[in-house]
């Protein structure tokens, strides 16, 4: 199954229908270090994307999302 990864503004968190994405809930999402962004992933485009309720900041392949996650903006220090 090919998944699409998207970066979303934290201000859109309440507009995410978690039944349409792989993320379990608002409590389990991965946020950027500064907590202004978070990730979602899906196989079928969610209606909240299709109808423009949420406009992604960025749309990525899995490989490119993994690369993004290793940057300082997303990767907290161990300590």
């Amino acid at each position, binding site marked *: *199954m090919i998944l699409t990864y998207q970066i979303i503004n934290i201000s859109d968190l309440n507009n995410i229908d978690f039944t349409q994405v792989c993320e379990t809930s608002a409590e389990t999402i991965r946020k950027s270090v500064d907590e202004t962004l978070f*990730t979602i*992933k899906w196989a079928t485009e969610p209606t909240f994307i299709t109808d423009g309720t949420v406009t992604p900041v960025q749309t990525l392949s899995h490989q490119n999302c*993994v*690369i993004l996650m290793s940057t300082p903006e997303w990767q907290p220090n161990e300590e």
Partner: protein
Amino acid sequence: MPLSINSSTGRIDTSASTVGTYTVTYTTSEGSATTQVTIQDCFTNTKSLSFDGVDDRLQIADSNTFSFGNGTSDSPFSVSAWIKTETNGKGIISKWGGNPSGYEWIIFIVNNVVRVALYDAHPSHNQRREGNTTVTTGEWINVIVTYDGRGGSNANQGIKIYINGEEESSYTDSGAGTYVAMHNTTRPVQIGAYNTAANFNGNIDEVGVYNAQLNQNGVNAVYNNGSPTDLSAITTSLVAWYRMGDDDTFPTITDNKGSNDATMTNMASNDIVNDTP
């Protein structure tokens, strides 16, 4: 059926019998004799979990089972897992992070080697040790970490890291702040991540947690010449065992030793895959 005998051949049909020990009595015209027959489960490993390196992880509720310090002294523990990393593999298993806050221990991949870090309640009070074996992406390896529970300012010297049954030939030790012992916090355990980030990219299989320091014999038994095996048959110090897909039903990954089941978080049922060591 408890014990099934093929009426034509007189042989025991193991596939139709229930696991257990039975007394079989043979009766002939000249008398009878008894013998014990034990039907055992045959260990098979056909599944692992695939982690995406973004937000996939297993979440296990906090339990004293996974805490090995009381703030004053540490106690021994060990962790074993089979892993296959892709790029940027990070957290293998941890009891570390914020919200709820708790900083106890992390086992992870950093700079392509295995690092273990123990924490005295705070991120900046730690004892760390990392091995020297480069973890090759795309290859299954067995990782076993043991700790003798010594605590104190040389706690990292009580850590041993084994890759495919062999202890690392050299270590790099580091630490920060003051370390006396780990604390028993409410932080959940995570497999495939720490701190809800630093997510593992690749596969993890057959994760065992032990409340003792495995010795070389124990390590050899777990590694089993490169073939995953029944961890419950090796040592009574096993306190948690996750088969990572075998006999599991999404989203629950059963603890086959204790009662601390794990939940697949931000994952899908097809993250249970047929890719094993």
